[in-house]
């Protein structure tokens, strides 16, 4: 903070000295408290030097609280924010509603063609770029090389679910508190349902058929859920129905998990300073079942300008600074290549320095293998790999997430859970007018 303050004071002095009368603009930037965003706030000195006429006010909140505040503001036309941090789920919906300002007119140095095609596609609505990706992620397998070796196994770069089960069985040792596999179990559309929906794609399952009829009564979902429950009950940690991203990250960092299938951004945490297993982690693509689709997702935390903002130009200036190639270079020079926000630009992955980062290749391969427009084996009427980009999904995903979480806690069988999910989703889709 003092740094920012000093930079600000310096900037003010500069203006006074040069005698230029610049109109001071203040923009309010709302963001999540994830590591990459926190790092950005530490680098504001650079922005303040380059744009002394723009003052940035931060609103940093935990993901769910931020989503709640930003959604309320934007849906009621509040205009409190000039830059908001939203994900690939929100962008298509909000863009269609006309709540976002198009970013087509960012300066040439932004180099829009450098964005990864899969990521850019998810943020484009009717040909207009509606948000600029800050970092992108897919999901992959993170595993303990030392434990695999001790078990006499090797992890293929592109494992199948059968490989995962075999490895989990070999690494689990409940006496020492080591569990073969840690997966999300906490209820929520962005928690267990993100994982399970992505996983179900590799089993050939889908949320809806082409006529929006829910598909939880189909054998593919049954196979998915039964495999998941069996895997977790046999080789997962106790109390897994309350484990989300954070809980599993902590477990893995403490060396209590043999494998963890989750977001690619976690790679920098499990190999980082807080991790007790930093030098023992290997990476592999998310598993498949030989059906042509892998169980990995696609997400990008992105910066967008609400249509209700009254400082759109300053907001775009900020977005250009925070998401162009120079910003990546800035982070690399200050914090090292491993801490550069991943998964947004082609140029980053052709950079030789970045290629030395252990998880770089697996991250880009994972991102490239996800296709939001054709997420699963069969055709679907929706966009989104681990979500369905319709306004109703947050409610639906959470409801189904609770049912599946209860199944993991042993309160329901897989069949009961699927029947309940089918009924709940069918009812809601009827109420929302998708089906009769």
């Amino acid at each position: 903070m003092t740094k920012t303050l000093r930079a600000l004071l310096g900037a003010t002095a500069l203006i006074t000295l040069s005698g230029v009368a610049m109109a001071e603009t203040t923009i309010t930037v709302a963001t999540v408290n994830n590591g990459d965003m926190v790092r950005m706030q530490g680098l504001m000195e650079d922005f303040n030097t380059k744009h002394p006429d723009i003052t940035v006010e931060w609103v940093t909140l935990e993901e769910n609280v931020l989503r709640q505040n930003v959604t309320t503001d934007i849906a009621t036309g509040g205009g409190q924010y000039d830059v908001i941090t939203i994900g690939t789920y929100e962008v298509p919906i909000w863009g269609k509603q006309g709540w976002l300002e198009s970013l087509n007119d960012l300066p040439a140095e932004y180099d829009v063609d450098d964005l990864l095609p899969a990521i850019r596609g998810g943020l484009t609505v009717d040909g207009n770029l509606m948000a600029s990706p800050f970092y992108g992620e897919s999901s992959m397998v993170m595993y303990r090389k030392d434990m695999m070796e001790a078990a006499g196994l090797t992890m293929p770069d592109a494992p199948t679910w059968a490989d995962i089960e075999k490895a989990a069985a070999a690494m689990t040792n409940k006496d020492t508190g080591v569990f073969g596999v840690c997966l999300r179990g906490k209820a929520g559309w962005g928690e267990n349902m993100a994982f399970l929906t992505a996983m179900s794609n590799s089993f050939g399952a889908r949320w809806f058929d082409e006529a929006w009829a829910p598909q939880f009564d189909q054998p593919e979902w049954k196979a998915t859920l039964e495999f998941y429950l069996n895997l977790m009950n046999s080789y997962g940690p106790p109390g897994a129905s309350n484990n989300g991203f954070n809980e599993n990250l902590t477990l893995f960092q403490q060396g209590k998990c043999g494998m963890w299938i989750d977001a690619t951004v976690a790679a920098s945490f499990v190999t980082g300073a807080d991790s007790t297993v930093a030098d023992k982690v290997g990476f592999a693509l998310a598993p498949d079942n030989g059906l042509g689709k892998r169980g990995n997702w696609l997400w990008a935390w992105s910066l967008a300008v609400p249509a209700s903002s009254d400082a759109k130009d300053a907001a775009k200036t900020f977005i250009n600074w925070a998401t162009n190639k120079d910003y990546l270079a800035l982070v690399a020079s200050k914090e090292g290549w491993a801490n550069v926000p991943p998964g947004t630009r082609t140029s980053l992955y052709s950079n030789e320095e970045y290629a030395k980062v252990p998880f770089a290749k697996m991250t880009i391969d994972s991102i490239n293998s996800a296709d939001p427009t054709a997420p699963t084996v069969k055709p679907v009427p929706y966009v989104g790999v681990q979500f369905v980009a319709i306004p109703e999904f947050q409610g639906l995903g959470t409801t189904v997430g609770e049912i599946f979480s209860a199944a993991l806690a042993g309160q329901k069988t897989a069949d009961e859970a699927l029947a309940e999910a089918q009924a709940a989703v069918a009812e809601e889709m009827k109420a929302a007018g998708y089906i009769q």
Partner: protein
Amino acid sequence: MSTHSSRLAARLMVAPSVALLLIWMIVPLAMTLYYSFRFYRLLSPDRTGWVGFNNYLWFMNAPDFWLALFNTLTLVGGVLIITVILGTLIALLIDQPVKGQGLLRILIIAPFFVMPPVAASIWENLFMHPQNGLFSAVSRGFGAQPILFLEDYPMLSVIGIVSWEWLPFATLILLTALQSLSSEQLEAAEMDGASAFSRFRYIILPHMTRAITVVILIQTIFLLGIFGEIYTTTQGGPGSASTTLPYMIFKQAIVAKDIGRAAAGGIIAVILANIVAYFLMRGLGRNLDS
């Protein structure tokens, strides 16, 4: 004392607060009532319209509605029982002459200063966590499997956390009630050969009735609306095992962003609160008159 002019003055003095509270109550209530009959989803602004009682029907036919209702009452009842009983015992204990009473009191009321989300997160992460929590370390120390608090006993865990937050409040009210009890009366009873239990039953307890009533009234009002602690710890789960009525409303308003249904849930919650309040006042109201 009740001259005509002083009555008028009194009315005038009560008027601002009544007027403000009336506005504060009526305006949001009217808006909520209005939305409860509307289709209003934040993310689908194009589709609006009257839906009659559909929102209410949806809420009351939701599979977890009755469980949520039951859980709400369990939470209120459970916390009241725990805080009143433990509060009485602790008050009796620290009413004795003990060393360092000032510091002792501060330690006991400390939970009251902790913001509810912080309290919930301390308990969830530092104590109840099956791998990193202190409780699991204790279990393991005894060679036992850690107890899965939030998975196997979600309602009990939430009740425990909320009770911890409200225990200081109950203890202090009850303590002050005790301190105003004259010691002569007790000594006389002791000389008459009354046992410790009968002294408590026939002298102390009647004296504390009013204090207990206040604890129950005020706590009930706060407890009926609790959802933050549930959101932080169990998120209403596993399944809907620890879902309460306010948490159901929270999910509709904030997760599903369905304002119409949340409004209908809000009206149902207000009705429930008034039913509870009615019975409380009938059962306890006379205790307030001294």
